Structure formats: C-alpha cells, structure tokens
C-alpha cells in the first residue's frame, strides 16, 4: 500500500498544564474519509487542533506527504495543504458570504473555483451578499466547509460538522461530504454521531482518554456495534 497522506505517531499535546493527548497514532490515505469517534473529552478535537498546530505544546510526529509538521507554525501547516473546519465554524461576521469564501489564501492548485463551490452549495449562492452573521446554523456550516475547498488543501479536517443541525441539514452535509470525496479530497472527520459517520466514512478510529483505542473498517461496522456501544455509551 502507498504511503499514507497523513501519518500521526505518538502525538502528545498539552493545554497549559493539562496533558490531553497521550500518544495518538492515526493514518489517513489519499482519497479516504476517516472519522475519529469517541465521547466528549476523549481528545478528538484536540487531535485535529494539534495536527493544525493550534495547540501550544505538542510532541510526537505528524507527517503529511512525508513532511514532518509537528514543530511547524499553523500558517505553514495550512500552506502545506491541510485545512481545518472548526467546530465553532469561525465565519467572519462582518464579511459577506463571497468575501468569506475568497478570504483564505490559495495554497496550491487543485482547489475548487468559486463557481464550482456555488454549484455544490446552491443555497450559499442565494445568500452570496449576506453578512456572515445573517446565516442560519446550517448555512454557516456549509460556508465553513465551502471556504476551505477553494484553497487547494488536500486534507480537510471537519470538526463535528453535524452538531446541533436539523436532520435534513445533516443529510445534506452527508451528501456534500460524499461529493467532495468523489472530487479527490481526503477527509478526517470528528463525529459523536456514529450513525452519521457510518454513512460517509471508510474507516473509523475510536478515541478514549487521549488515545486511539480501536479502529474499525466501515464494512465491519455492523459486527462491531457491541464494542462501539460500549465505547461511546450510546
């Protein structure tokens, strides 16, 4: 098998004095959709933030396309081709939809054009001139995802894109994720809702107390339900 696009090894991270990640190891291959499952506080979001360079202190190894990024600054990690869509979405309130879409710098070729993005998210096109604050939760989430498609980043990390959204919007986000996967993007997804994760992902990692404790192929999901219920307490 080819080298993974992203290989995280023995990743440790701290917030101030608290030791959050105790040696996380995951691999994501090109074109895959991989999820991190786990309860609140298991370290899923911290893993994404640590990969993105947003956690103050981290150690271990984060290799992206063979390049070691564990010591790199966040803006360099972004320029290497990794993009994060954070849980709080981070839409810039005083910029309108188009301005929000055009803001992130293009880091390499291969991103979608504005027209392609609007074709993928027709409801954003209708709101093109609306300021960020005027959007509904679902629209903000769409915009947060759409915004990182233009930059040419290869690996998209989505942090709980379905959280707090109506079921019909969740379905729409699922369709979007499958569509961007088809366009060749690689996706690392954090989810609490494994029923949703099941509909989009190829593989799953389960996290507990800052470590990866299990890995499940989506095809084996049915057989692993018992284990998952135990891990996730659902």
């Amino acid at each position, binding site marked *: 098998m080819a080298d993974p696009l992203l290989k995280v090894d023995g990743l440790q991270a701290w917030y101030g004095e608290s030791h959050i990640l105790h040696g996380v190891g995951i691999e994501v291959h090109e074109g895959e959709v991989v999820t991190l499952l786990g309860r609140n506080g298991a370290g899923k979001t911290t893993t994404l933030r640590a990969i993105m360079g947003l956690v103050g202190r981290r150690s271990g190894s984060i290799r992206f396309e063979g390049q070691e990024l564990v010591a790199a600054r966040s*803006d360099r990690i972004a320029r290497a081709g990794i993009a994060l869509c954070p849980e709080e979405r*981070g839409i*810039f309130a005083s910029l309108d939809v188009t301005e929000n879409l055009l803001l992130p710098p293009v880091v390499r070729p291969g991103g979608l054009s504005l027209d392609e993005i609007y074709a993928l998210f027709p409801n954003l096109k209708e709101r093109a001139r609306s300021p960020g604050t005027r959007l509904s939760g679902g629209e903000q989430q769409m915009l947060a995802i759409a915004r990182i498609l233009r930059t040419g980043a290869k690996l998209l990390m989505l942090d709980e894109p379905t959280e707090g959204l109506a079921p019909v919007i969740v379905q729409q986000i699922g369709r979007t994720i499958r569509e961007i996967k088809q366009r060749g993007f690689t996706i690392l997804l954090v989810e609490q809702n494994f029923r949703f994760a099941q509909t989009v992902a190829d593989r799953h990692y389960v996290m507990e107390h800052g470590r990866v404790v299990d890995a499940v192929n989506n095809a084996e999901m049915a057989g692993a339900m018992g284990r998952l219920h135990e891990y996730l307490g659902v």
Partner: protein
Amino acid sequence: MAGQATAFTATAQQSPGLPGLAALGFNRAQSIAFLLLLGLLLVGPFVLYPVFLMKLLCFALFACAFNLLIGYVGLLSFGHAMFFGMGGYVTAHAAKVWGLTPELAILAGGAVGAVLGVVAGWIAIRRQGIYFAMITLALAQMIFFVCLQAPFTGGEDGIQSVPRGALLGVFSLAQDMSLYWVVAAVFLAGFLLINRIIHSPFGQVLTAIRENEPRAISLGYRVDDYKLMAFTLSATLAGIAGGTKALVFGIATLTDVYWAMSGEVVLMTLVGGLGTVFGPVLGAAVIVSMQNYLAEFGAWVTVIQGCIFVACVLAFRAGIAGQLGRWLRVRL
C-alpha cells in the same frame, strides 16, 4: 468595543453605492456622506476660519490613521503621538533647515512615521490587548524624551517659524486659503487611501484577524506580517498628518509628541465611532471644535471632554457615526 461596532455594522443593510463612488468601496449611504464631506470641504473655508479648518483636517487624518489600526485590526495603540509628533518635527526641520518644498517636507514627515512604525510595530505586535497598548506607550515616551533632548527639535521651544514655502517651488502657500486647498487635498488623499485599504482583499484579511485571529492563522495567513503592514501604514499617515499640522501652524512642539496626544486621538476615534469610515472625521471635528470654541473655559475644556468621553462610552458605544448609522439603518 471593536466587537460591539462590528456586530451592528454586520446587520446593517448592504446597498450598492452610487456609480463612480462604488469603485472607491463606498456603499450608498457612504457615497452620500462622502459627497456631503466634499461639499463641506469646498464651502468650509468661505464660512469658517481656514486655519481652524486646517487644524481639524490634520486631526481628522490622524484619527482616520489611528482608526485603521483600532477599527480594522483591533489593535489599540497608545503611542500614536510618536508618529504624529515626530512627523511634525521632521517636516518642520526639512522645511526650515533643509529648505525643502512643503510637499517634500510633508512626505519626509510621512517617511519618518513609516520608519518609526516599522520599528515600533515590529516590537509591539508580538503582544495583544493591554500589553500592546503599554508597549506602544512606552516606545512613545522614549521618543518624547528623544524630542526633549535632541538638539534639532529645539527642546522646550520646539521648532518655530517654519516657512510654509511654495508648493512645488512655484505656488506660494503664505495665504491661508492657498494652504487650505493643499491640506484639504492631503486629507482627502489619506482618507481615500484608507478607505481603499479597508475595502481591499488586504483589508478583509485585517478584518478577519480582528474578528478571529487564530482562525485567520489556521487558514494560512502570517498575521504578524499583516499587522505590521497595517501598523506601518497607520504610522505613515499619522506622520503625514503631523507634518501637515506643523506647516499649518509653522511650529513643531512637544505637545504633539506628548502622551496626552495619543489619548486625544483615542478619544476622537471613540467619540466618532470605532471601525466606521466617517466616525474619526466627525470625532476630530467635535473634539477640535470644543477645544477651539470652549477655549474661554480654560482648563474646564478637559473636564467637559472627560464628561463627553464617559457619556459616549456609557450611552453611545458605537460613537456618533455608529449611532447615526444605527438609527438610519446604514453603514457609515
């Protein structure tokens, strides 16, 4: 407070600007306000004392430059007097000792603002909030003492009887009216430049940094570079404003480089409206008019200013332009 201003501008109606003015980045309300401003600039000197108007325009440009930093990047500098005052000294020195023409002398003031801005900015942008403000204040105090001690500034006396000279060496500016048009042109150029900056892609990155700096970084921006550029631009324009003021009054003194001047520009911007295009101009107009027309009350002007400041912060946090914009449901 910057956040406060943002929240409402974002909810204001987005309307296309008037043709021609839209190219400058103005929306409809701003286009009308701009035409009004142009009208006032044209009629002003025939109604009011030109020297008073020139002083007002210098401070308006200073406040606009300051607003570029606080209103659009969210950085509160408490040391802008160093650029304003030093710009004044260098322009005065250039005009009086080197015999440069006024436009070159003003540019020299801007250049020294830029150089100081790069150095001060490079040191200060490493910290945020109160620490940023304190570093800029400390640097400004250092510059104050340099101005107090350096031989070329004339110490307590300042640089006096600075010649206005002749524009491009041809048009004499000895008459207040002729100098007024030059000052108005300098103000207008600075004002439009700032407006162009905040509506450019560069300005949008600045806005993004103000609203969510970690997000801007993780999208791939080296925000320190952007902050430094904004800081330098702001310092340059402050230097130009200070230089222009020195030519208007023919004097450069310690008052303009003293920390109270840094406070005054904060006051002007706050009273006018943080993060609004026209706010700093209105704020400067209010504060300068008060100083001028209430001068007979002597030290009480400061007390009155203090009361206005407190009232503004308590009741109209969006400032004059911000509050007006809220009532008219437009973005000024």
